[in-house]
């Protein structure tokens, strides 16, 4: 129990306060002057009583409140908060992690005899760890000092000190808060002194490090992707180097590093990813020979490359119903971003088709075929190039240009994951043959001569063993999908495979995978009839659209159409646990039922050995496995055994709560310093020189308020009677002098 203290509140703004005060004084002055003809004693007594009355009124206007607190002394009790975010998994000098190092500090505290409870935090705070204090598996979540401390202090107000063991990384609001905001936040939380200890090796001497990487988590195929890296160089005057960007193990770009006066430099890489899926990009700075730590010269970022649209370049050599069918399919497919160019009149039509009438240019909607623009400058921006009954050789200026641009298409297919579809027709057959151009290397079917005979007879297609399970032909119907008009005498290219052929073995639909791309040759220009014939036969007519949609997906290498599919999922609650579903199909797309296989999980930080997940598929070629990572990081899922290694693409993924935690592993002492300074705690920067006595001294012997009583004098029952009593007294004095 202690003495009550008085609290007053202002009436309002300062001008109101002064006005009320002056008015009160004026009233008092007038009342004193009004008694100037009275005897001095009466005058003095009356003035005093009136002063008491006016002063009481003025006092009561300020809401006077008496506060009395019942306070109980509180024993010292400290909470130790250990950072368990992803960045705490980084190694320190002795090979252990920062997280493990933090636990070794607890021994020092214990030896000192300080009572403490241990909690862990990242973006939230755990429950007390209990008596068993041992490092656990890091989940890799992001650090958020603001959120976790707010949560902790509002839940646990009885601690007299908090000690935080951390590397200072903060990905929450705290780093962006101003000094005033920080102070207000800590005051609002009634924060006890917060002691902080920096965990991790602070390096001195020459140093080149990647400070941070700025990259989107998601981007699109063949859309510009920008990755920026901030590099910091310390104690290396005049240092010049280059930054490399790698996709897996392939160098994509190299940029010169230009440093400012403070030793900071930014490099920006912009490129166009060509393949769908997760890409692990690495930024690497070649180490300087004086550097002691080269770990931070390399940082990785995972970008999921998706597909917004399928960018199709559709070129047709003649205007036919087949063109209309394919164009209608492209127009109705919302996934297709179509760039089309159709030859609407040839040189012959210009010369003889106008009856020598000169039709002005502005009366026609035609533009010249932009050969260079399409085949040179914009080619690599497309996913698929479709030649529909196109006699390409007739539209180049000369043979040099033809060869150069055809080579470019070949390069687009072989080296840039391009798709190339050829629909054969009378004009293709009429030559000059694509088989005599550089494209012959990537065409599944090669017309060997300048002109190819065009057979107008209908052919009944037969599925080959590869075609039977091929996704492109999943709705194949031999009754309605006939081939009328084919190029005869074409040769199957080496490495190409036939999906459909006629009775005589002539290939009708062939595919090939030259280099990194895929090509398809449909040996007819009558596919548009498939829909109409199906409708006429009372069927849905979807087989035509489905064929072309699947064909487009196949040539752009849509992962959904790969023979081997690896599907993964993880949860926010347990981000280190990965559920893997595998679908195995053989080269001909037949499900690999009851097959034993092994999926390898390779940690990309090289800190542990790969893990093999062995499984047996069910009747549909599917299997499910679960994998739990030891620590957050990047992992690659891959098959190492034939044939699955050839039929699949390795998948790279991140396991853990937040990738951002791994983008910058440098220590950030400033965060911890600020936290300690504004809460009257202490900051220590060296875990190996940790002084627990310093912490104990900083822990205050605080007292705990267990009860507070408040009396508002204005509401006090005796206030009014007392004032009335004084007023009566004053009246009695005046009455006694015959004044009232």
């Amino acid at each position, binding site marked *: 129990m202690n003495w009550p203290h008085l609290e007053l509140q202002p009436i309002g703004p300062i001008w109101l306060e002064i006005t009320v005060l002056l008015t009160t004084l004026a009233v008092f002055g007038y009342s004193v002057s009004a008694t100037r003809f009275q005897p001095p004693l009466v005058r003095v007594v009356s003035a005093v009583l009136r002063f008491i009355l006016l002063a009481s009124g003025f006092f009561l206007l300020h809401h006077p409140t008496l506060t009395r607190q019942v306070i109980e002394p509180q024993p010292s009790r400290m909470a130790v908060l250990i950072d368990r975010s992803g960045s705490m998994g980084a190694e320190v000098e002795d090979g252990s992690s920062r997280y493990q190092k933090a636990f070794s500090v607890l021994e020092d505290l214990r030896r000192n005899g300080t009572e403490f409870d241990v909690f862990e935090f990242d973006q939230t705070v755990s429950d007390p760890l209990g008596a068993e204090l041992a490092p656990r598996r890091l989940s890799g979540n992001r650090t958020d000092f603001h959120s976790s401390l707010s949560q902790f202090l509002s839940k646990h107000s009885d601690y007299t000190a908090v000690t935080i063991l951390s590397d200072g990384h903060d990905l929450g609001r705290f780093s962006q808060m101003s000094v005033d905001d920080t102070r207000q936040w800590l005051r609002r939380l009634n924060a006890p002194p917060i002691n902080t200890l920096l965990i991790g090796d602070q390096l001195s001497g020459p140093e080149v490090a990647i400070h941070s990487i700025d990259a989107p988590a998601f981007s699109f195929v063949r859309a510009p992707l920008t990755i920026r890296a901030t590099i910091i160089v310390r104690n290396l005057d005049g240092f010049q180097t280059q930054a490399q960007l790698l996709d897996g193990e392939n160098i994509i770009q190299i940029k010169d590093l230009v440093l400012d006066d403070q030793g900071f430099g930014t490099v920006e890489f912009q490129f166009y990813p060509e393949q769908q899926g997760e890409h692990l990009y690495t930024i690497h700075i070649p180490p300087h020979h004086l550097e002691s730590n080269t770990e931070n010269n390399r940082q990785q970022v995972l970008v999921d490359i998706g597909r917004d649209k399928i960018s199709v370049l559709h070129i047709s*050599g*003649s*205007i*036919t*119903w*087949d*063109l*209309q*069918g394919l*164009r*209608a399919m492209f*127009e*109705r497919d919302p996934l297709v971003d*179509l*760039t*089309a160019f*159709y*030859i*609407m*009149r*040839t040189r012959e*039509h210009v010369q*003889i*088709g*106008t*009856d020598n009438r000169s*039709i002005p*240019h*502005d*009366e*026609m*909607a*035609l*533009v010249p075929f932009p050969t260079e623009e399409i085949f040179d400058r914009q080619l690599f921006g497309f996913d698929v190039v479709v030649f529909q009954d196109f006699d390409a050789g007739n539209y180049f200026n000369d043979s040099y240009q033809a060869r150069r641009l055809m080579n470019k298409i070949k390069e687009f297919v072989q080296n840039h994951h391009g798709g190339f579809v050829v629909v054969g*027709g*009378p004009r293709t057959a009429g030559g000059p043959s694509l088989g005599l151009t550089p494209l012959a290397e990537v065409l599944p079917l090669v017309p060997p001569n300048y002109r190819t005979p065009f057979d*107008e007879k*209908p052919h009944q297609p037969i599925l080959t063993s590869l075609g039977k399970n091929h996704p492109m032909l999943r709705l194949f119907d031999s009754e309605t999908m006939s081939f*009328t*008009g084919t190029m005869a005498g074409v040769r199957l290219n080496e490495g190409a495979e036939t999906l459909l052929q006629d009775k005589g073995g002539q290939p009708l639909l062939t595919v090939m995978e030259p280099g990194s791309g895929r090509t398809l040759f449909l040996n007819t*220009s*009558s596919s*548009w*009839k498939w*829909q*109409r014939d199906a*409708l*006429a036969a009372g069927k849905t*007519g979807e087989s035509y659209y489905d064929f072309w949609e699947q064909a487009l997906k196949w040539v752009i290498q849509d992962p959904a159409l790969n023979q081997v599919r690896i599907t993964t999922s993880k949860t926010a609650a347990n981000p280190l646990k990965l559920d893997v579903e595998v679908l195995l199909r053989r080269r001909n797309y037949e499900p690999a039922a009851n097959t034993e296989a092994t999926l390898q999980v390779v940690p990309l930080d090289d800190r542990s050995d790969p893990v093999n997940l062995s499984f047996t598929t069910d009747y549909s070629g599917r299997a499910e496995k679960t994998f739990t990572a030891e620590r957050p990081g990047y992992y690659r899922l891959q098959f190492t055994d034939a044939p699955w290694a050839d039929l699949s693409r390795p998948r790279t993924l991140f396991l853990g709560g937040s990738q951002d935690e791994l983008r910058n592993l440098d220590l950030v002492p400033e965060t911890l310093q600020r936290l300690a300074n504004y809460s009257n705690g202490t900051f220590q920067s060296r875990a190996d020189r940790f002084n627990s006595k310093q912490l104990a001294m900083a822990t205050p012997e605080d007292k705990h308020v267990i009860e507070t009583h408040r009396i508002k004098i204005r509401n006090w029952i005796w206030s009014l009677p007392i004032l009335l009593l004084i007023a009566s007294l004053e009246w009695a004095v005046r009455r006694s002098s015959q004044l009232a």
Partner: protein
Amino acid sequence: MDRRRFLLTGGALLTAACVPALAEDGGAFQYCLLRLGDQWEARSRALVKLSFEVQKRCNIPIETKPSIVNFGQITKVNSPFFVISGGAAFKQPSAGDARAMRLVLNSGGILLFDDTSPRGDTGFYEAALKLMRRVYPELEGPGVLPRDHAVYQSYYLLKEPRGRLNKSDFLEGWTMGGRTRAFFSHNDLLGAMEADQLGSWRYNMEIGGGFRRELCFRLGINMTYYTLTLNYKKDRAFPPIIERRRRI
């Protein structure tokens, strides 16, 4: 072979050669005139003339003679550009035939109604509306095609539709899913193209002369290109160029 058998066989072969082959399976484009109404053949030579112009001017492999079929045969036609020409009300086809027309139009075909009737006679128009209501009951009716419709810019740049008559300055159409399935021309488009075997024009133009006829051919060619290339000229590369040329 006796003489009677020779004559029968020869006659049959000759007939087969003369009648346009309905089951002809080449990929060439061909107009198809429907036998519907009393005046279906009044403009039959116009399509020959138009085919000839298309062959001369355009990169469209085309049969120079139109096929002529009954309504019940439309699903057998390989080149589904159907023309119904007339100037009076016609007998409505059966429900099954209307369904067949819907099937054909949905799978890429197109239908052109060409009204040859003089001003004030709406019998053909009413019959066309009735037919299309049976083919596409869900469609409200024909709409006036806007000036920037692809049919006005699919090959030639046209400001308005022409014809032998000058009844209206717009085309009407039944559009669904971004594609116009049927056109209605009020101005006797085929009448302007109709010529005899020697090439003499059969009908005089209501207004103007040679150039107006040329504009009719241009509209016919544009309709053909629109049928085969759909909204190609609405692709993002063309509108700025076309806009610039229209302003000149």
